[in-house]
């Protein structure tokens, strides 16, 4: 899971808390404060913090005592002590008790910045190690394909079962569900894994172009054939050929291709000499091929050939347990790629992601997260970073009394607008006073963020 440097400043002096919080927030870190050890421990129970700044001298339980408690409970939390002049003794005691470092008030700006950088690095390393440990323990044997839902676990099992053989596999699923990744995972677990995985998107070519792409052509085979070109059938020799959108192949090409599958032979356009090739065929479609067969646009004999084993990839809306996992995976990938400091998803945003129906499936989710990382300005993705504002907020099915529907709707809107009262009221088309009254009436509480 993606980590973030969530920070808490524990100090009895308001000015120190606010000053340090303001400074840290300019670096994009999420910062909470506590005015004494008791409040700090309470907050630690409720929320995870990666880093604590703790004043050594506080009324009640002092900083060193707090440090010991924290280290007992959550040894991974990094603690930095804040000391005043003359309390160097306690600073040393604190270092022995597990503090990572200490700072003398007031701090030198450069020291403070270097320290934070160093600690962020430490945290990244700790997370990296944990991730490595976890990946050893399973889950990522299917490369980039991830999922924790029962449906995906079954899919992983099926991939493992079919991978060692050589039978043709047809992968069926809506657009963006990850059919190509499933094909790659099968290839990667098969004995052909050291040979090429060659993908052809049959929907992206005209009939003649698809023909020359698959079979290749000799120089001068047709107008425009300036060089000899190897076909994908040749390139896939020894490996796996992946025909994406196989439902788009014309009936004529189906006949040609059927012959290749039966004879394991083909010839380049413009060259009558047959060549042999040996590949495993994996096809994918988002279309209902049985229906296409009925309509006589898809050949039944070809269908039987490519569909020895069917793998169905369920749409994302039928495995909502995967949304959070996938969202974090993409968040990690894009915040690194775009060099951005976004490292988490707020509860409200996650709520919206989970409720949405995802007609474009995982690809759509990936795009939404990429966009949010690009435009997001906070450490966490917030509802405002998602493209579901206004009328496009996913609605629950309408059920129940008018009052219940209104209650749900207002709650959705508040969440989507991050509890911005003015914005929510304007989206709802009511004034702010009315909105306040409704909030009171339904007893909504703004979540502590």
């Amino acid at each position, binding site marked *: 899971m993606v980590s973030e440097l969530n920070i808490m400043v524990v100090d009895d002096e308001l000015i120190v808390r606010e000053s340090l919080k303001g400074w840290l927030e300019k670096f994009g870190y999420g910062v909470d404060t506590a005015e004494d050890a008791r409040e700090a421990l309470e907050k630690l129970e409720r929320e995870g913090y990666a880093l604590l700044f703790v004043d050594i001298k506080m009324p009640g339980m002092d900083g060193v005592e707090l440090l010991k408690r924290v280290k007992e409970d959550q040894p991974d939390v990094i603690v930095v002590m804040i000391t005043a002049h003359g309390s160097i003794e306690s600073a040393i005691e604190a270092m022995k008790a597990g503090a990572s470092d200490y700072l003398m008030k007031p701090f030198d700006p450069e020291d*403070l910045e270097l320290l934070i950088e160093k600690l962020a690095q430490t945290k990244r390393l700790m997370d990296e190690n944990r991730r490595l440990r976890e990946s050893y323990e399973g889950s990522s044997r299917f490369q980039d394909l991830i999922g924790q839902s029962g449906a995906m676990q079954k899919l992983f099992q099926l991939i493992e079962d079919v991978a060692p053989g050589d039978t043709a596999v047809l992968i069926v699923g809506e657009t963006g569900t990850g059919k190509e990744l499933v094909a790659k995972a099968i290839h990667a677990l098969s004995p052909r894994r050291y040979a090429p995985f060659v993908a052809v998107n049959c929907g992206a070519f005209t009939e003649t172009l698809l023909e020359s792409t698959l079979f290749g052509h000799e120089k001068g085979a047709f107008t425009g054939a300036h060089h000899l070109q190897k076909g994908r059938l040749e390139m896939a020799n020894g490996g796996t050929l992946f025909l994406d959108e196989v439902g788009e192949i014309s009936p004529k090409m189906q006949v040609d291709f059927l012959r290749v599958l039966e004879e394991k032979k083909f010839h380049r356009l413009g060259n009558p000499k047959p060549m042999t090739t040996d590949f495993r065929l994996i096809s994918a479609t988002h279309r209902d091929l049985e229906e296409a067969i009925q309509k006589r646009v898809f050949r039944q004999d070809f269908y039987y050939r490519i569909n020895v084993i069917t793998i169905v990839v369920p749409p994302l809306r039928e495995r909502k347990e995967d949304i959070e996992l996938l969202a974090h995976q993409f968040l990690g990938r894009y915040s690194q790629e775009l060099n951005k400091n976004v490292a988490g998803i707020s509860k409200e945003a996650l709520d919206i992601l989970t409720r949405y129906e995802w007609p474009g499936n995982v690809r759509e989710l990936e795009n939404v997260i990429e966009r949010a990382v690009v435009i997001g300005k906070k450490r966490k993705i917030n509802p405002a970073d998602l493209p579901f504002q206004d009328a496009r907020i996913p609605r629950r099915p309408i059920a129940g009394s008018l009052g219940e529907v209104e209650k749900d709707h207002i709650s959705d809107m508040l969440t989507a607008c991050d509890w911005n009262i003015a914005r929510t009221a304007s989206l709802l088309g009511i004034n702010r006073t009315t909105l306040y009254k409704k909030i009171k009436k339904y007893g909504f509480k703004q979540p502590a963020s």
Partner: protein
Amino acid sequence: MTSEKKIIAVQPLGRARRDVLEVIAANLQAFFQIRTEVFLDQPIPDGAYNSQRGQYNCYPIIESLRISKPHHAIKIIGVTEVDLFIPILTYVFGEAELGGNAAVVSTYRLARGKDREPVSSRRLFERAAKIAVHEMGHTFRLPHCKEDRCIMSSFPVLSHIDEKTIYFCRYCTTFLRDEYEKLGFA
């Protein structure tokens, strides 16, 4: 709200060199595309001086700038020659609250080089302009940027300042445009 009417106010606090004020005003106007005006100087607010540290606390200064800001100014930036601090740090070159409307910068530490010898006026102008643009950027909600050359990256020490260019990277430019849109002067 239209951008032609609104201005950024440059407020000298105590003594401040006229040429430095002009350079800051010109750079803010160029980088934020908002007209700037140099105001008449005002004394540094009482209560900002900390006799133990012999320095001036940014917070009361920012607070008084915020209160004195005239309506037609959308932001105000104080410019001073005294040494500034915030309570947790030994010194700062300038300070602004994220998304606030007042900032303050000081030339106190900018006028000298590593070996304490005075630097040329050109260098001083450049440093002052960079700090002013950076702090003003914070008032427009720009956080620190990871792009080293970007003016919004952080520079705790003087030598870092000289390495920056006065330029907003791609992301900061986008964020600034977003903020302008929110403020209603796209």
